[in-house]
């Protein structure tokens, strides 16, 4: 057993956690912004898939990875705007529209991918992002190679967490987002546009989901497959609850999930071969359910989550 653990806990393991956590962190922060403004975005799974496809395609056709990232972010923002149009401007059911957005985005991603790349026996791949070691910091033992010898998008995710906390808690816009998610009428009577603030938050959320998708096809797998997202969007929704709608806690939740996921990957590869690998695959999800059951009891959602705002209604 100790050999198994030795194999598991090493520098590569730490690095794997960080890498698995990155798309989850982007997606979780994106969903958090949306929900803090009062809009549940169940479109996240499909938006991530479409952005993963769009970013991959743009990078593959243009040869520029950063153009790919930009396209993914813009696609995410656009899909966020679509979800906001339905749920904020028209005040339709956030559940139904979110599932609609996921179905639409997924279908669109499959369709466009087939249209552009045709059916190939081996999926086309690109030369994805390469790790960029940060001078000095990457020389720190253990932590250095694991955290500071990573993709630029990973660094971006690490910066995104405190930045999200700053925006949410320290800026007037962040206060407006929290207020429209708690009591839109209060924000409205203070002269804050509820509709505009919610649109902005959902669009920002979509853009962050776009980054999550871009990371999958341009750093993690360097190819697009139909299963590339495989439930990460749904997990992000759970992680937002687990992280109690707070950027720091949400990032922590993403790291915890990534830890369990990295662990099960190692366990699959290690000498526990007599157990079917599907059993290991389940572990992170079982962990999420158990964690949710214990942690989300005293988590309190933004009061106006799921509630459309119509001014004339009293």
């Amino acid at each position, binding site marked *: 057993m100790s050999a198994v653990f030795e194999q598991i806990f090493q520098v590569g393991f730490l690095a794997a956690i960080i890498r698995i956590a990155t798309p989850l962190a982007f997606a979780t922060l994106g969903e958090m912004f949306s929900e803090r403004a009062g809009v549940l975005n169940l479109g996240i799974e499909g938006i991530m898939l479409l952005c993963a496809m769009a970013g991959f395609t743009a990078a593959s056709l243009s040869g520029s990875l950063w153009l790919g990232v930009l396209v993914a972010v813009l696609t995410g923002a656009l899909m966020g705007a679509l979800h906001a149009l339905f749920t904020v401007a028209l005040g339709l059911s956030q559940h139904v529209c979110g599932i609609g957005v996921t179905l639409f985005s997924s279908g669109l991603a499959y369709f466009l991918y087939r249209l552009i790349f045709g059916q190939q026996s081996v999926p086309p791949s690109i030369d994805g992002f390469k790790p960029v070691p940060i001078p000095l910091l990457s020389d720190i033992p253990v932590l250095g190679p694991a955290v500071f010898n990573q993709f630029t998008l990973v660094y971006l995710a690490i910066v995104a967490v405190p930045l999200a906390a700053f925006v949410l808690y*320290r*800026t*007037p816009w*962040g*206060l*407006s987002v*929290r*207020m429209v998610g*708690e*009591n839109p*009428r*209060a*924000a*409205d*009577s*203070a*002269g*804050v546009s509820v509709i505009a603030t919610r649109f902005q938050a959902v669009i920002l959320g979509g853009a962050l989901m776009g980054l999550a998708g871009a990371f999958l096809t341009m750093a993690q797998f360097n190819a697009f497959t139909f299963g590339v997202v495989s439930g990460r969007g749904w997990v992000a929704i759970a992680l937002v609850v687990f992280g109690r709608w707070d950027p720091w806690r949400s990032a922590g939740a993403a790291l915890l999930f990534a830890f369990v996921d990295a662990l099960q990957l190692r366990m699959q590869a290690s000498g526990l071969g007599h157990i079917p690998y599907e059993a290991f695959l389940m572990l992170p999800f079982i962990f999420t359910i158990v964690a949710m059951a214990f942690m989300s009891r005293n988590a*309190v959602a933004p*009061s106006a989550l799921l509630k459309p705002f119509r*001014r004339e209604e009293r």
Partner: protein
Amino acid sequence: MSAPLIEMRGITKSFGAVKANEAVDLSVAPGEILGLLGENGAGKTTLMNVLFGAYAPDAGEILVEGRPVAIHNSADALAAGIGMVHQHFHLAPRLTVLENLLIGIPGKSGRIDRARGLARLNEIGRQYGLSLDPNLPVSALSVGEQQRLEIIKALFRGAKLLILDEPTAVLAPSEVDGLFAALRSMATQGLGIIFISHKLNEVRALTHRCVVLRHGKVAGRVDHPAQTTSAEMAKLMCGHEIVPPTKEASSPGAAVLTLDGISTSGHAGTPLRDVSLSVRSGEILGIAGVSGNGQRALADVISGMLPPRAGAMTIAGKAVARFSPRELQALGLGRIPEDRMTTGLVTNLPLADSMVLPRIGTEAFSRKGLLNPAAIRAFAEEQIKAYDIRCPGPMVRAGALSGGNLQKALLARELAFDPKVLIVSQPTRGLDIGAARFIHEKFLAMRAKGCGIIVIGEDLEELLMLSDRIAVMYEGRIAGTLPSADATVARLGLMMTGAGHTEEAA
């Protein structure tokens, strides 16, 4: 006299065929407290929403300090110096006091300007004697403090005119005094105040002048409210004299409801602690208290929705073995809940369905597990006629009715089955004088027929008028019980704050 702070000229606003406001003129001078009186639906709220920018008037203009202004939304209103304290507070409970103040205020170099916010909060605290801890979450504030925060919020944004929509409805008597002191201090420092209320004694005590609205028009103006009697003002509001119902002496019989040492737990709000009380047949027991002192738990226990942790209850002499609304109803309990719209009836269903809901499974309305629509409809039609419920018919969506008519429907639904005990919460909250009068008469008629009634309420004048005895709740206990002949608003008010325990045999 200087130019009025605010002047509204010829304001007319229609919703479809209904004229909510018709050629209303109104002005407030600096330092003046103007009362705006009127029954529900008289157009007070519409008029103030026009002033605050929520509705655009069809005709008329608004002048601020002599200059015409266009107010299209609340931001325009705030910019023009108009602040409003709504009846339902516009606060985010989980954000702090300071965050609630700073919402919508531009920051300094991209950040929230906490320092300036704190300075301004202190300044308002000194100037008007209104202070609050800036770092407390709003959910930790009492209702009175939340209202203070709403007032501070308006002042924070530089309001020169403050509109208060029924501000005393949510306050305890002692808090009302504090509010009035603050409002008077603001007025002496040059602010204008519009005080909306239908409580005539408050308007007489506080305001300098009043405008009375009826059916959207100005029905009258009172220049010296303090020297005008409540009866005169009530007449202006309703268009006719209002005679309080006469309460005849009754001789209470045997106890129809007793609570013995009831305690509860696991309930949202204040739990009950060792509550014992009894109501006799032909008696009305008033339950007074500042909202949130266990009244809801008491109503829920008596109506069978909350099984107590300890203690015993009897209805009409029979011990209650199982706490369930249906069980208690079978024993002879009738209940009119506090919130008509959420626990009272199903707003999206036809009125007739809501009216039979508590007895939907009984012989009268269903046979062999199938509903009997004809019987349900007939019952509803009968009650609509008997109680003069104004509605297009029994199949209309219940939520479309006005508050007074909904309350009549709820009353009809319970009284049709001759309950031995009736528990009602806030029976006339939000109702106009006419509808409230109707409800009161029905209670007194039930009392004469030998029904025991418990009225949980916050309006002490109403409790004094209806009740034979009044019990005061404080922190989940009965702080004391008084025969209403010995009770006064002042004495009850004192007991409601936990002072002056006068325990008498309940």
